[in-house]
């Protein structure tokens, strides 16, 4: 699963759409997801963005599902914690289950369901951006909105180096595993520590080598390159506006627990 979102982004037909346009869709959806009542907006967001991703952005449904389940561990733990009330129950709540200071009420479950809905809908929006926009495009966008160049240079180099280092990390790990480095917890910890150190040493070494390579290419203090300029897509923007309006309209007539 490692970096399959990134791989999808580079091949995405939506790469041609301007980052600003995609950000409008994603940010607008995220905002509405949080401010309007969760029902019926969050299921609609999940449905709408899934259709957009699979039908129009040509994301494989397996990848889409897998990506949405990545934050599952946190989401489930978090939502269950919200459903569980501690201490005196609010007057007027409907108690479904109680044990000592712990209680589950209709209200707490509704709250948990709201968060669950928002979380899944939000994940859809973030993943849609992730699978349609390679990091380099976002870095370019960052430069355009005025984040200092050197900071964006570092972000861009980080992105490049992380794949180089990832390969090293995977190789070190499999070399360790081949020599039984991950049998038993004690050995595993020692191997993992050595792996972390190995990656750090390689990060250092790689940066020195890349630095030398760049010097050879005439690098002095600026990493200027061509930027991808993508024009706005009117149809995409119009569809986004319509989508956000529908969400907003449904939101004002919807119900659910406003957090």
């Amino acid at each position: 699963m490692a970096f399959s979102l990134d791989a999808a982004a580079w091949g995405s037909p939506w790469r041609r759409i301007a980052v600003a346009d995609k950000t409008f869709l994603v940010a607008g959806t995220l905002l509405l997801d949080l401010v309007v009542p969760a029902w019926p907006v969050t299921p609609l967001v999940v449905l709408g963005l899934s259709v957009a991703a699979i039908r129009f952005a040509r994301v494989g449904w397996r990848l889409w599902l897998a990506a949405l389940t990545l934050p599952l561990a946190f989401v489930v733990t978090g939502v269950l914690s919200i459903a569980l009330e501690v201490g005196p129950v609010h007057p007027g709540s409907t108690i479904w289950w109680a044990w000592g200071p712990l209680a589950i009420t209709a209200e707490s479950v509704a709250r948990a369901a709201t968060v669950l809905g928002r979380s899944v809908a939000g994940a859809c929006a973030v993943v849609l951006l992730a699978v349609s926009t390679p990091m380099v495009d976002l870095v370019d966008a960052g430069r355009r909105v005025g984040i200092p160049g050197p900071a964006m240079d570092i972000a861009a180099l980080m992105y490049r180096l992380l794949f180089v280092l990832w390969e090293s990390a995977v190789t070190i790990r499999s070399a360790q595993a081949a020599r039984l480095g991950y049998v038993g917890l004690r050995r595993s910890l020692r191997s993992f520590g050595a792996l972390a150190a190995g990656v750090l040493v390689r990060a250092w070494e790689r940066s020195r080598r890349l630095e030398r390579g760049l010097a050879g290419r005439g690098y002095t203090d600026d990493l200027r390159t061509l930027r991808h300029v993508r024009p706005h897509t009117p149809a995409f923007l119009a569809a986004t506006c319509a989508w956000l309006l529908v969400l907003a309209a449904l939101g004002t007539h919807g119900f659910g627990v406003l957090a």
Partner: protein
Amino acid sequence: MTLQAEGLSAGYPSRGTVLDEVSVSLTAGERTVLLGANGSGKTTLLGCLSGAIVPTGGVVSIDGVPLQHSRHGLSDHRRRVQLVLQDPDDQLFSADVTQDVSFGPLNLGLSEDEARDRVVEALDLLGVSHLSERATHQLSYGEKKRVAVAGAVAMRPSHLLLDEPTAGLDPDGVEDMLTAIARLEAHGTTVTMATHDVDLALAWGTSAVVVTGGRTRQGPVADLLGDPVLVAAAHLRTPWPLELAARLGWAERPRGLEDVTRLLARP
């Protein structure tokens, strides 16, 4: 001891199927070379054979006993089959040579003394005893490659799988590596190597496995590399002795300079 793969399939979500029901047999004492273009699946095949990659289908077995991808099964397999990858930099993860080579033996649960003996033996077989106290990052590329092999050899595997053991080495480095491999074979290890160097494959190997389009073909190395159709399909190159033989219309298949000289000297 025979290391076998039968009906083996493997792939990655991003690349799709890489190996499609291939079968390979690495017999003890045989010198097998694995040939194929970049990205043809050689490294994936080696990964499956060594247990590092879980195939999507098919079976890897040793003497007919199938490999179980459980913790125990893998640990058992790894005592007998060791894989050394192409890039030595990422396989040496300890600070010094002795420490790195002792990593495997200590994980086998050997005592420090036994592990030390294994290290001495492995470094000796690879001809790098003089490097035992050196820091890994100070070694030359060729030295690193031999130390990486020593790390695998210290596990005393019966099958050693080497991915491009001679790539990036200068002529002396290649010779040192081949000498070390011959010592390992004399010591009872069966060596299999993946290589891009068809001339070397012909000169060194006896059996060959050609990987192309997700499939494999196995046979005597001179037969496979002497088959122009297969060579073209697999994006390989005919080794020069076979090319010369073909041009001169020889029936015999020379494997290197010695054979060619001998054949030319015939009346």
